[in-house]
């Protein structure tokens, strides 16, 4: 019987196994097919590192990791290289564009450059900045934004979820990006950035930091840097699919290698460095999934100009500095104006598994150059003292680069866009906007071309100011001032370190007339590098101002009980004494006293009570004189009993 049953079950089991296996086998075959196509148009990953010496003895390192996924219909929900978490985000929240940056330190626009592609797209305000463009109807955007902040907050171990409250994000109308209604922008200037944010960011890379260029990211050396900005940029379109750009920009100061021969010159010579000395790590191995793995080294325009003055041209090994491995390729920037020198990029390819690519730069002679600056240097500061009111000032100072621009064309005008978000507890009086040009007050309507103000709403919205200025290029300085009153918050709305003050997010200053695009002599196909292609995009020059720290008045945090009791005492005093005055009838009282003197009047309730109490006590003879006393005693006991009962029932 049992054998028979077994024999009957066996083919069934076999069938089951087959049934399970067929889709798996089919998918395996399909996977192989997909693997074949991956090279051509499937998901791609590339990693690049961009290095540039900075004039103030520092080195800029910019990592650029790019993952792309073709439109999702082709692959379904499965991804080989593209991080699934990000793909899910895009799918769930219908994100068109998203940029999230974690930054520590402030980009020094004066000495690190203000108009090159790195500074205008990768210099970010301190703390967290997030903006997202949704492909959704306007009604659903706010709810989606809230969900998105929570998802990102979980994904990156940061308190991005604080951006969910309507007081901290805003929909800029035109000053941030031109005319979009489904954009949301939020910033948390005080967010501290550390390795806990970097680790989840690295997890999105196919090789993490185990192999490839990402293996350079040694935590102590990159967090020791002067500026650290970790960014995630996501673009998703129907035609090209999803593109995820992860960039990490650090400004590091190489250790000075003491050289006995040049000890007298050591202070003036730029410190020599190599990738391994700067990051305290070597590139270990190749990240196999990466399509390209390259390092670029840039000599910026002013540096090339200075070199050409000395007659060295574009050589990577001259009497001023040496680049240690020879570059594979050299890209030269093409310039619309002929007869001028331009920046040069040397390309290195990380192709060997065993020989780590250790790019190094050795300075031999002192060399001074300056970086390319934005036309106007924007800064922002607070004016006034005390905790009641103050003013915000935004100043734009003309720089060297503007002078060159001015020399080129006469009668030109500069256009400047200013986008400023102010939290609601800084109550800005927008009518007090004053404009000073070269130190002289100017009527606002002469300079302001377009303005949009959305005043803050207490505990609901932040206030925003979007301004478009236009003034002649010959102007040396422009200053804007706005008065504000400081708000007073509820005790719970203060952060734990209330006396430190509150941060106002950085203002964004954009120069729409100036672009930071680079174009190279080589054509795009031969360049074939996502980073350099990105440099060729026509981006406007932007700079962020400093975050402001506004000290606000604090109440006494230890006082809530005292304040409640004091106030209620005053209130009770008022209520009780006024009611007492109204209730009292002096004439009645006098009459009562008189009548009491004549006859002992027994009131009804005490009489009843006394009778009741005497019955309780078993006394039949209650004298009327002691009755009132007994009554009050009894009342007291009754109240006590009631209180005990109440307590008992309530518990």
């Amino acid at each position: 019987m049992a054998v028979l049953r077994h024999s009957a079950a066996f083919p069934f089991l076999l069938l089951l196994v087959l049934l399970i296996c067929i889709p798996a086998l089919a998918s395996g075959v399909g996977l192989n097919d997909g693997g074949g196509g991956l090279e051509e148009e499937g998901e791609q990953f590339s990693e690049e590192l961009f290095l540039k010496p900075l004039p103030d003895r520092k080195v800029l390192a910019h990592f650029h990791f790019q993952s792309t996924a073709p439109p999702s219909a082709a692959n379904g929900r499965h991804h080989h290289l593209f991080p699934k978490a990000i793909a899910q985000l895009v799918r769930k929240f219908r994100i068109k564009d998203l940029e999230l940056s974690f930054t520590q330190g402030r980009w020094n626009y004066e000495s690190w450059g203000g108009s090159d592609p790195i500074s205008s797209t990768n210099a970010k305000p301190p703390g967290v900045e997030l903006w997202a463009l949704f492909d959704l109807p306007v009604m659903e955007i706010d709810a989606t934004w809230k969900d998105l902040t929570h998802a990102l907050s979980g994904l990156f171990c940061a308190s991005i979820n604080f951006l969910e409250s309507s007081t901290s994000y805003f929909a800029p109308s035109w000053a941030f990006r031109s005319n979009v209604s489904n954009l949301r922008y939020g910033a948390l200037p005080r967010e501290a950035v550390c390795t806990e944010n970097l680790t989840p960011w690295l997890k999105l890379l196919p090789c993490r930091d185990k192999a490839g260029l990402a293996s350079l990211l040694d935590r102590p050396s990159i967090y020791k840097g002067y500026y650290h900005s970790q960014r995630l940029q996501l673009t998703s379109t129907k035609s090209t699919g999803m593109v995820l750009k992860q960039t990490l920009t650090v400004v590091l100061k190489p250790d000075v290698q003491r050289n006995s021969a040049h000890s007298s010159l050591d202070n003036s010579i730029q410190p020599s460095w190599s990738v391994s000395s700067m990051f305290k790590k070597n590139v270990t191995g190749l990240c196999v999934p990466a399509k390209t793995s390259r390092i670029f080294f840039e000599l910026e325009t002013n540096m090339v100009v200075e070199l050409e003055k000395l007659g060295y041209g574009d050589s990577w090994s001259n009497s001023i500095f040496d680049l240690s491995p020879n570059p594979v390729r050299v890209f030269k920037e093409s310039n619309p104006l002929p007869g001028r020198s331009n920046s040069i990029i040397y390309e290195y390819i990380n192709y060997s598994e065993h020989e780590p690519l250790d790019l190094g730069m050795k300075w031999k002679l002192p060399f001074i150059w300056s970086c390319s600056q934005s036309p106007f240097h924007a800064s922002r500061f607070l004016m006034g003292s005390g905790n009641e009111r103050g003013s915000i000032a935004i100043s734009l100072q003309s720089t060297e680069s503007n002078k060159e621009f001015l020399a080129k064309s006469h009668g030109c005008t500069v256009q400047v866009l200013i986008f400023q978000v102010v939290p609601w507890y800084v109550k800005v009086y927008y009518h007090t906007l004053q404009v000073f040009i070269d130190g002289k007050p100017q009527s606002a309507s002469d300079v302001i071309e377009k303005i949009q103000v959305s005043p803050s709403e207490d505990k609901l919205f932040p206030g925003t100011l979007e301004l478009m200025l236009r003034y002649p290029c010959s102007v040396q300085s422009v200053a804007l001032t706005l008065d504000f009153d400081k708000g007073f918050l509820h005790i719970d709305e203060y952060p734990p370190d209330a006396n430190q003050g509150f941060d106002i997010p950085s203002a964004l200053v954009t120069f729409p007339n100036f672009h930071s695009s680079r174009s190279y002599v080589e054509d795009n196909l031969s360049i074939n590098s996502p980073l350099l292609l990105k440099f060729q995009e026509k981006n406007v020059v932007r700079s962020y101002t400093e975050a402001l720290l506004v000290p606000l008045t604090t109440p006494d945090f230890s006082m809530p009980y005292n304040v409640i009791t004091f106030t209620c005492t005053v209130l009770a005093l008022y209520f009780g004494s006024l009611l007492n005055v109204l209730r009292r009838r002096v004439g009645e009282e006098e009459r009562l006293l008189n009548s009491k003197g004549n006859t002992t009047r027994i009131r009804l309730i005490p009489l009843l009570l006394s009778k009741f109490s005497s019955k309780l006590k078993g006394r039949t003879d209650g004298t009327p004189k002691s009755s009132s006393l007994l009554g009050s005693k009894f009342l007291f006991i009754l109240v006590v009993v009631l209180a005990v009962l109440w307590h008992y029932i309530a518990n």
Partner: protein
Amino acid sequence: MAGIRGYWNLAAAAIAFRLLLLLCFPKDLHLGSRPEVATPLTSLRRRMKHNLLAEGYWLKQASMSPYSGSMYHGSPLLLSFLGQLTIRRVEGRPPHFYCSLMFVVVDFITAVLIRATGQKLLLSRHKSFQVLNLSKLVEASGIVNPGDFASLVYLWNPLTIVTCMGSSTSPIDNLMVVMAIYGACSRIAPLAAFGWVFATHLSLYPIILIVPVILLLGYGLDAPPSKLFLHKTSDASSSCALNQSPDNSEAPKLTDNAIHTFSWVQVLHFVLWVFIWLCFVLLLSSISLKDVGGLSEMFRKTYGFILTVEDLSPNIGVLWYFFAEVFDFFRNFFLIVFHVNILFMILPLAIRLKHRSCFLAFVYIAISSMLKSYPSVGDSALYLGLLALFCNELADMHFSFFLFCGYIGVSLLSPVMHNLWIWRGTGNANFYFATGLAYACLQTVLVVESVSSMLKHDRMLRKLVKA
């Protein structure tokens, strides 16, 4: 009986003093930003901002709601009225020059109305004393003219001057309240209704003045309790019956005149006018807010703002600190408690003081200015001025010297504490709150003592009549 000699000189001097301050210290005073003077509801600085925004003075864009931005919480009518004045600038003058000039005029009108009210009160007092055969009492106490006195107290009160100079709109609120009282005292129902409707529209709290206004219209001016007249009448009639002399028959007639029966006609007239003015105000507001927000937003942003104490910036009251510190889950409870405290006292006071409706109005004003969410010294200026109307009745009030010193002390200490806390950072919020607490106590004592001495005065009259 005669008014204070040189009343007009003194009043003119008060006006001249204001103008002098306005012209000589155009920018040095900064009174408009003092927390004692300007509250979120009355500050002109806040008001001005939205004027400019709404009128697109320099913004070439669609006008915004005056309430957007949580800055402005007043009436839209005031905005369109004062807006014209705030924009107009004069060379070498402070920014709100025309506004301040208007406030000087408003102060003067208020003082004149207080004077007229006082004279009416004095007349009625004399009449009732004649009826009660107490004329000797009038002659015995060298009586001051309460109208002149109160009007001068109002004009020369430093608090009033500071409010007037500080470009806060409380002089207008005060004018409306005084107008309502004057209209009720002189039985001009349209004026009383106008004052009451506008005062309520501007600052909500005068809504409780409907009780004294109706009592004034119904029963007439302040008089000793009607029981005394009845007593007198019965005495007189009995004496008439005894004597049968014809010349005594005038006395009961006079007494009948003195005991006013409640005249429903006047009250109905008043209600009708209230309705008319209410429609008028709502219509004007909805016209001025037609494109931006509308009436529901106005109610939410003005009355809602008053009732929920959203703004926690310091003022001379105690509620700002209380609601800055109180736990969030108790907030609604205490909001109800504080506002119901104003309402609780309406009925008991109305029962005990129904024969003294004008005094009742004063008590209501004092209570509401003590418990209101955003008090300022402008409110105190009003009730201190009205208090002087009853200088004869309250002549033997207790603690008057203590109160006087207290008011001076608080008004000197409060700016000092504010400066220590906000500007120097050496004191903390508790210092300033303590002066607010002291001020609330002083106001409590003032209200309680004035009510008790008024009741005592009535008792004294009764004794005299019965004697």
